[in-house]
């Protein structure tokens, strides 16, 4: 398959949230989201209830995919940072560890320079965690030690979803 299965465990989830909460404070931003490149929301901190997070995740991934396509057309591997400037709010979107998208929403209380600086440091920390996560998932798969929740589902379980 093209990309390995993305799995998130409680322990790493806490670590990730700790880092993005710290980034939220240090970058003086309003909301921060982490999105999988396939458009699935991994986590969000800050004023998340103000936003339709599912749509935001899918559009962000579409955005990254489209600019990634543009990058390839001109011979670049990818554009690792995107910046969208609005009247009040701005979006700083960056790719972390090659496979996860970090979205920082901020207004005039912060600045692009500050956000860029803080994102750079947080990205390194996040990359380490996601590398760990991938390794852990791969090891689990190799050893056949699957605590996979769906291994034991029955046809009835599936049918019940549609009843």
């Amino acid at each position, binding site marked *: 398959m093209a990309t390995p*299965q*993305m799995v998130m465990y409680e322990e790493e989830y806490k670590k990730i949230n700790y880092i993005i909460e710290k980034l939220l404070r240090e970058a003086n931003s309003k909301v921060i989201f982490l999105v999988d*490149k396939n458009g*699935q929301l991994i986590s969000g901190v800050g004023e998340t209830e103000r936003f339709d997070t*599912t*749509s935001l995740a899918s559009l962000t991934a579409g955005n990254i995919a489209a600019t990634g*396509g543009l990058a390839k057309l001109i011979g670049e591997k990818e554009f690792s940072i995107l910046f969208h400037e609005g009247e009040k709010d701005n979006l700083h979107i960056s790719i972390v560890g090659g496979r996860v998208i970090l979205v920082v929403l901020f207004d005039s209380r912060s600045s692009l320079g500050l956000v860029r600086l803080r994102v750079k440091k947080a990205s390194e920390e996040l990359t380490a965690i996601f590398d760990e996560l991938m390794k852990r998932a791969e090891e689990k798969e190799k050893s056949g030690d699957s605590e996979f*929740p769906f291994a034991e589902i029955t046809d009835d379980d599936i049918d019940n*979803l549609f009843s």
Partner: protein
Amino acid sequence: MSFINYASREINCKIVYYGPGLCGKTTNLQFIYNKTAADSKGKMISLATETERTLFFDFLPLALGEIKGFKTRFHLYTVPGQVFYDASRKLILKGVDGVVFVADSQEERVDANIESLDNLNVNLIEQGYDLNKIPFVIQYNKRDLPNIISVDELRRDLNLTSVPDFEACATTGDGVFETLKAIAKLILIDLKKGK
């Protein structure tokens, strides 16, 4: 690929509706959106041109319920069907868990169906997938129109590997949920194998 989140006990899967231009992919999603209870669906997003042709994709998040304590969420995407949007189509296939091919049953769209299915094959291979190995169903849409060819003919042209297939009329909703259920089921069975 599906995303399993043990922290929030969620499993997310991506379904892509593929097919030639104007075959009814967006109409499928619109019908599902209109008939789903408000608490189990999110906002439907359509990135379309002013003439309502899909420009990039339509997106509809659906929550189906729980299995073994895990919330199952399906993200439904359509691709732009028009031939010249191929670059966008490739992007949307990234990370796909299952594909629905929506065929246009009208006689004059026979070639367009075959061309689109070939294009799906090529684009999946480019992303590292094999259509014969991933969850895949076919829908023969527009069965209500007068100038249609028989299901047997459609099958012969499009369903070479005998995957589950359904007759549909997306505007009235006939066959729409049957198709969705079939692909969702195939994806869950695929997950069960724990690949």
